[in-house]
């Protein structure tokens, strides 16, 4: 993937409810950076919000490479361990 193919996404993640707002900026890095700076300024000092600017070839890839912002609890390793231990009669 070349730089020109990179799409930019602004992620505004609310920690308390685990919700991520994702704003797509396609290939417009300048607009994405501007929006990032604005969001950062808006939420500065707010421990409940994380603002991240990420680049990827698609939203689908981003959801895989940065899944902690998107995935539901069933993808958490604790769920895997719970299932495995239950099958072995150890939980």
């Amino acid at each position: 993937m070349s730089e020109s193919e990179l799409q930019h996404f602004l992620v505004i993640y609310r920690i308390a409810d685990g919700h991520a707002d994702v704003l797509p900026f396609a290939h417009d890095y300048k607009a994405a950076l501007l929006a990032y700076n604005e969001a950062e300024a808006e939420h500065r000092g707010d421990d409940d919000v994380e603002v991240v600017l990420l680049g990827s070839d698609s939203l689908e890839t981003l959801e895989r490479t940065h899944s902690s912002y998107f995935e539901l609890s069933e993808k958490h390793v604790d769920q895997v361990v719970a299932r495995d231990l239950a099958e072995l009669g150890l939980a």
Partner: protein
Amino acid sequence: MEDIGGVRAILPGQSNVDELVRELRRQPRWQIRRVREYITGRDPGPKADGYRAVHVVVERDGCFIEIQLRTPWQDRWAQSVEQDTRRLRHGLKFGVGPAELREYFRVVAEYLELRERNEEPQEELLKELSKLFAATRRYYADG
């Protein structure tokens, strides 16, 4: 902190990660500045908290980029730690937080490594995992 940019890729297995590292070493465009294999039996081995991955730092046009290469289970583990670091506000990702939770994640990483390699975990490891699983239920909603 020398890396100013970061890239992450999730590959199907450790052999694919290793092949990509070989490719990176062969290509002439980016200079390899450092390779850290946080993998059992390699240098420097898994991190103390259980983190597993291969990190390659490359330099191009004076910029350092850290490339993080993970298998699906290594990534799932790291994303879970990341998620719990935010959710529990314990600083788990940075090596702080409740000892039993940190130990739980360390043992889970060991367990997942065997699972990914289709190897049977030893009884000792399963017992430890089971004990830590019970000790950490308070951190999970349905615990």
